[in-house]
């Protein structure tokens, strides 16, 4: 009898909708900053506290700004990716040390390796607000004109680097 097939039919319809629902990815967080000039800052350098750094110094280069902290667990997950990227020397990587303590941050870099050309210190997280930091780590790809071209929320993985960051960086470097 056909009436016992009804539940199956309804269920198949439901699965169809759920499958479409999955592809919508409601949680992807876009960045309003992409396509806009990177917010300016003037911050002390981690290893040389008397020196200061402004993003304008990077004009003409395509570079990565990586927000990190020694207290952040995911940063450790991501760290080998950054070290590998630094080793390849495709582009300079700068660190934004976010809401951290100086000695803990330097000890952390000593322990796990320092992929950064330099790290700037954002002790109270004010620059983080300008950049719309949701959580650490985050990474920004900034072009020669100082415009943010890509933002990664959460740890970078080799896959994201290969598929998104490197192709975009190569295109921008031309």
């Amino acid at each position, binding site marked *: 009898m056909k009436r016992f097939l009804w*539940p199956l039919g309804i269920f*198949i319809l439901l*699965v169809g*909708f759920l499958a479409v629902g*999955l592809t919508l990815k*409601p949680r992807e967080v876009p960045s309003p900053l992409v396509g806009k000039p990177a917010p300016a800052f003037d911050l002390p350098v981690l290893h040389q506290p008397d020196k200061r750094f402004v993003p304008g110094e990077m004009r003409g280069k395509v570079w990565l700004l990586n927000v990190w902290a020694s207290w*952040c*667990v995911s940063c*450790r997950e991501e760290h080998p990716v950054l070290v590998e990227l630094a080793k390849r020397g495709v582009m300079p990587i700068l660190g934004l040390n976010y809401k951290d303590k100086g000695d803990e941050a330097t000890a952390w870099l000593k322990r796990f390796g320092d992929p950064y050309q330099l790290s700037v210190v954002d002790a109270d997280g004010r620059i983080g607000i300008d950049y719309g930091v949701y959580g650490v780590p985050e990474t920004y790809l900034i072009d020669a004109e100082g415009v943010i071209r890509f933002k990664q929320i959460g740890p970078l993985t080799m896959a994201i680097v290969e598929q998104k960051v490197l192709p975009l960086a190569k295109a921008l470097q031309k």
Partner: protein
Amino acid sequence: MIPEIGNFALIVALAIALAQAALSLTGAARRIPAFVAVARPAAQGQFVFVAAAFGCLAWSFYSNDFSVLNVASNSNSSLPAAYRIAATWGSHEGSLLLWVLMLSAWMLAVSVFSGSLPADMLARILGVMGLINVGFLSFMLFTSNPFDRLLPAAADGRDLNPLLQDIGMIFHPPMLYMGYVGFSVAFAFAIAALLDGRLDATWARWSRPWTTAAWVFLTLGIALGSWWAYYELGWGGWWFWDPVENASFMPWLIGTALIHSLAVTEKRGAFKAWTVLLAIIAFSLSLLGTFLVRSGVLTSVHAFATDPKRGIFILAFLAVVIGGSLALYAWRMNKVAPGARFELLSRESMLLANSVLLVVACAAVLLGTLYPLFLDALGLGKISVGPPYFDSVFAPLMAPAVLLAGIGPLLAWRKGDGAQLARRLRWAAIVALIGALFLPLAFGRWAALTSVGLLLAFWIISGAVTAFIIRYRMKTSMSAAFFGMLLAHAGIGVFIVGVTLVKSYETERDLRMEPGDTAMLGGYSFRFEGVREVRGPNYAAARGAITVQRDGETIARLAPEKRTYFVQRNPMTEAAINAGISRDIFVALGDAVGGDAWTVRIHIKPFIRWIWFGCLMMAFGGLLAASDRRYRIAARRPEDASAADATLIRSGAA
């Protein structure tokens, strides 16, 4: 080392589950006794290994092993020990492990307490459950392994979400999962019976206590969750029709329909197709709930981190398990003989009407929960369906169900006597009507909806009391199951009293208060004494002091807090509650608004405790029903089941 042992134990458990599913199902189908015999030891071995894995994870949390990613992301060395252990199931990975542990525990229970089941039936049941465990164990091992290492180890962890650092959160998930997962037993019984072709009263009798037990846990789990949301979220609400809440409520509704429908199948051999379908749907909704919560398809206040890859896995699993069982249902159900006949006015028809109402109500909840997803999937815009939708659909559908639940226990099986029923219910109806009409006046404000709510509540309570008195007068021994049923029905009445009075007479105010300010609400005066800084084990808090007085007499000194946890740095509102039978006084701190002034929210919630007390009564009633002697006797002598059937029908409510 410990995490590796745990990981290894999980892999062994997966291997056992695979063997259990494959061997016992083929063994039962091909009648190979050696394969059938595997089921019981395999189920028990599986439990041992899953429990070992769970113990390893709990130990990693307890001993602050931050080289485990899960521990580093969800715990902290300053977290109190009890919460460190509760953090074991605070994360996605950990809660999956809890799911699997519960499933294994139910399997263990089935393998221990079903000594009298025919060996091939038991093999089929454990085979189906093993198959489910295969799905969940591989989901865990391949997409969300709780033992993943973090090397080098973190110095300290990211801490448990402050909302979960609470006594309610220690007990809520295990209870809820016990219930959720417990429906897998009813499901496995149904599938086994479909495979076997033996869909009869014996099958229903075996499956009944298990289903009721799962329902008891689910009832308690939902009640605990509601209680937790009430005092921890700081909003003073007790139910939000949030997708995650609905995900646990829908299996409860179907489970309720199922235990009633099973009663008919057991006693009268009727509604077989319907009962089997309900058993499949109840567990399907448990799986669907897991999918909704874990895949991130729907978003809710319970915004735990999610991952689409996991969603695809669960959806595929869902499609295989539910699609497969519904196909089996369509294929096998044709061959099942129809059950015994019954008149329109009989206990059967009442139970059928009730379970249909419950299913329709569940469908309405499902529709409201998934509607935003449907529209989004069809590209018709982003919407949200708010609590008013659920209130205005759910209440009218449940009202007739409650009316019938007052009548059902007084009707005889097969053919009821209308005149006798009217005589029996005369007093119940009068009491309910008068009470419902005049009680609201005692609160000073009469409203039609309040009266309707109270009418339903008093009706079902006095119906249960009437049934109790009739049984008592007849001097027939009352079974624990019958008394449990009456208690659960009365529990629904108590629950409705709570809901009606809270909805009708709750009051709240948001205020700006400076130290020394006094505000009045509902006959109570609230004096704000100011705020001082305090420190907890892993947080700092601003603690307010509010003195509550009535007629010049101090009733309570409340200390609501605004906490900031050191690690995650988020503010957390910790409400202060003065609980009572007839009302709760609920105070929460808002923000500091300059100087010493704070915003303060005050609620008075009349009879809110009755909501959870009613749930406790339902759960206790279910417990009594599940532990009825009859099942143990029947379980020992299955060949007597048909004889027992006959006596039970005779000693029924007639």
